[in-house]
Every structure is written in C-alpha cells, then in structure tokens.
C-alpha cells in the first residue's frame, strides 16, 4: 500500500455555528490524483485550508505526513485561487518563485545559490524562464498559473493542492494546463478542487463530491444519484461529453 500523505478523520467545521464541513473523512495516498467537485459554497476551499492547518476543525483529526498540519504542511505545495492577488504588486516572476524556497531556508537567512538554481530550473521546466524578469501582473492568467505552480514545486512537495486552478485560465488553454498537471503525478499526490466538473473529470483518476458532506467514489464513474446528493438538484449524466452534467430545473 502506498504511503498515506493526508488523513482526515470525521472532520467538522462550523462558521458561526453553521456547519460547512460535516463528518468528512478522507485518506490521500502518495500516488493519488484526486478531483473534488462540488458547488460554490460547498466547502471545497475550507477543506483545503483544513489540510493546510489554516482552519482548525471544530471536531475531528487531521494528519499530514503523519504529523499535525502545521508541521506536515511544509511537504505540501499549495496553489490558491490566486485571482485575488494585487496585479500591480512590484515583484518579478523570479522573486515570486524564489519565495517558495522560504520553507527550506527560514527566518533571517538569505536565499542561497542553491535556492536560486532550483528556482531557475523549476521556471525552466514550466517553460517560463524567459519571463523571469517580467512583473508578475504583466503575464496572462495561464502564465501566472505556471509561475504559481513553479513556486509550489520548488520545495519538492509530496502533495500538490490546487484550488479552482482553471478559473483564471483561458478555456482553450485548459487542456494544456491539465497535461502539465498530469506530467507531475508521478512525483507527488495531487488534489484539485473545482466547481467545473467537465474538465476535471476527464483528467483525474478519482473523483469525490463535496457539498458539506464528502461523497467519495474511488473511481470517476459517478451515478446520477450520487451527483444529485451533492448538488441537491436533478442532474443528467452524459457519459463522454465535455459537459457531463446538466441542471434540469429549479428546485
């Protein structure tokens, strides 16, 4: 059996007494490639933040690499829904990637030659080396995404968490993005969350549905019944289309 990188055991999270996550249990193994889909507000980002130790669950136990999330998270590469950052922030691509090496260097230390070499190599592998001196806001959404992936990869993580990774990417670049992610799956476990089922379901190996509760299927064949439980609305399944579900009516 592959090593377990993350274990969630009966996790509950409440905001103002309202449950956002209920009874969520999940085990992510070292070779997993898991897509978590669910409606907006269903707790997807909350779930990632619980794994990262940014949100403390009100009940349940989180283990990351056999440790607490605060200790284990240095083995996690995290790519947030980065459409929130300040596009005009005065920083270039190379310095953004170098930030990722903080986890290895620590407070008061300067980045070493090795840190710079790793940042350069990672940018190169993402095909972004020629933009190293470019201000981060002067890149397209897809190019920014590659820079943030490079920043997550410089620590050589055991798990990559991606939150709505395709939200800021031009639709015709999405296939290219998934191929990039696909090329990483030999080296680490990958979990990506999205409300957009269509793209996710083509590439990932396992799918879980999250709407406060987690429905884990172990494979990407989901029955209409299970999808209905997640989305609380009637859903039509189309086997191999690019739009695998359709909401039929208001409810």
């Amino acid at each position: 059996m592959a090593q377990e990188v993350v274990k969630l055991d009966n996790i509950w999270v409440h905001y103002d007494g309202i449950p956002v996550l209920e009874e969520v249990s999940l085990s992510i193994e070292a070779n997993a490639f898991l897509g978590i889909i669910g409606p907006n507000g269903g707790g997807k980002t909350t779930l990632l933040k619980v794994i990262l130790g940014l949100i403390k669950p009100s009940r349940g136990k989180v283990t990351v690499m056999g440790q607490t999330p605060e200790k284990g998270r240095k083995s996690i590469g995290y790519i947030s829904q980065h459409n929130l950052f300040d596009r005009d922030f005065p920083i270039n691509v190379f310095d953004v990637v170098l930030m990722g090496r903080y986890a290895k260097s620590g407070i008061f230390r300067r980045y070493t030659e090795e840190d710079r070499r790793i940042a350069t190599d990672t940018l190169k592998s993402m095909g972004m080396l020629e933009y190293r001196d470019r201000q981060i806001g002067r890149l397209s959404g897809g190019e920014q995404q590659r820079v943030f992936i490079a920043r997550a990869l410089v620590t050589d993580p055991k798990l990559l968490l991606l939150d709505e990774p395709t939200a800021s990417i031009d639709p015709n670049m999405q296939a290219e993005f998934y191929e990039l992610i696909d090329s990483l799956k030999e080296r680490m476990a990958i979990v990506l969350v999205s409300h957009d089922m269509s793209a996710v379901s083509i590439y990932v190996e396992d799918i879980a549905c999250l709407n406060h509760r987690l429905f884990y299927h172990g494979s990407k064949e989901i029955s209409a019944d299970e999808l209905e439980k997640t989305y609380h609305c009637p859903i039509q399944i189309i086997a191999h289309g690019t739009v695998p579900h359709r909401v039929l009516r208001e409810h």
Partner: protein
Amino acid sequence: MFEVLQYEFMQNALLAGLLASVACGIIGVYVVVKRVVFISGGIAHSSFGGIGLGYYLGIHPVLGAMFFAMAGALSMGLVTRRTRLPEDTAIGILWAMGMALGIIFIGLTPGYAPDLFSYLFGNILTVPAFDLTLMIVLDGIIILLVSLLYKEFLLISFDEEFSKVSGVPTERLYLLLLGLIALTVVVLIRVVGIILVIALLTIPAAMARQFTYKIKTMMLLAILFGTIFTFSGLWLSYLLDLASGATIILVSGVALFISFGINKLRSKVRNHG
C-alpha cells in the same frame, strides 16, 4: 540664498528632512504595497494621546508619542486580526480614542501647552538636538530590521496565506511591521506633524512605484523623492514665510500629480505611436 545654510537651525532642518525621508522612503513602500494606509493614519493620530500624556507627566512629548504609537499599532493590529470587528471600523475607533485621550491629558495639564501646534502640523525649523538623535536611532532600527527581514516582509506583503503555509510567523511580522510604521510616525512628527504624516508615508512611495517594480529600487527612489520634497518645501516655506510642514506636503502632492500626468501622457504617446 545659500548663506542661510550657515545657520545651525537650517543645518538641523536639512538633517531632519533627510532622516525623515529615509524612514518614510523605506516604510512608506510597505505602507503602499501592503495597502495599510488607513491603519498607518490611525497609528499616527492615536500617537497624539502620547503627546498629551507627555505634557501631563512633564516628560518629552515625543517619547509619549512613541509609546502611544507603538501601543496603537499593537492594539490595531490585534483587534483587526483577532476580532470580528471590520478592520476600518476598528481603526476609526482607535484613531479617535487616541486623539481624545490627548485632548483630555492636555486639558488636565495646568497652564499652556507650548509647541502643541508644531506636533500637529510639524515645524522642521525648530527640531531640537535630542529629537535629531532620536531620529537617527530610529532610522538605524528601521534599516537594521528591514534588511534582516527583507524577504519575510516581501512574503507577507505579497501573499499572507502562502507565507503562513511556508512557515513565516506571519501575524508577528505583521505586528512588527506596524511597529516600524509607528517608529516612522515618530521620526516624521517633528517634520510634518501628526496630522500630515500620512502624506509623507504615501506620496514618495507612490511616486517611486511609477518608475520601477523592484521593491529595493522603489525604496531608494522614495528616499530620493522624499529628500527632494522636504528640501524644496523647506526652501519655499522659508522664502515665502509659510508653514514648513504644510508646504512640504503641498510640494509633494503637486509633484505626484505632475508625475502621474506625465506618465499618462507618455503611455498615450506610446499607444498611438
């Protein structure tokens, strides 16, 4: 006009202008890029409570201001991070409470409060030697801490969530940054006064941002612009017999608008050419 430079008060004024520009050039860049302008205004105004306390206890008002600015920075930082109060509400309340305390203390102090106006609006021509020494020490602390924690401050300014995940002590460094803003306020009080501090914290950095996207270059440019503004404002105020603090601010503001205008024209020309 150069014979005026022989006078000690003028040499002191120029030194004060330079020391103020160093502090506001470095810290102002963080104030602008991390978008903590409003909280910086709150820290500056709440320091007035310390001016009042200084008069009341008979200690140097600038030391009182330093204590209050630090306490204000810490409490605003903690209240905005740890309570559910909206950030701008919390800042507005502490801002006004600090000033109110200052008024109460001054009211309780028997007699007349000399120089009160110069703490509110600055008077670069009357900076005493003790204050100059204090400014040098505070500038030294600011330069030392920013050079030691440069990469950490960059991380928390750009992306707090990522910095937390990477193991940066994000909240403590944020509080430290607010503390450095408080020290900068103290450095600037004698030059432009509590009410006008916020202009020198933002204008040189905002102007520098138009010319570069490197934080270090931005700091050096902001120091240069701050020095030009304080020196030319000082010279103009001397020439026209105007209040020095206010003149420095107006010179800075006008320069910023002109530079925005030129930049706009340049990008128009570029787009059409």
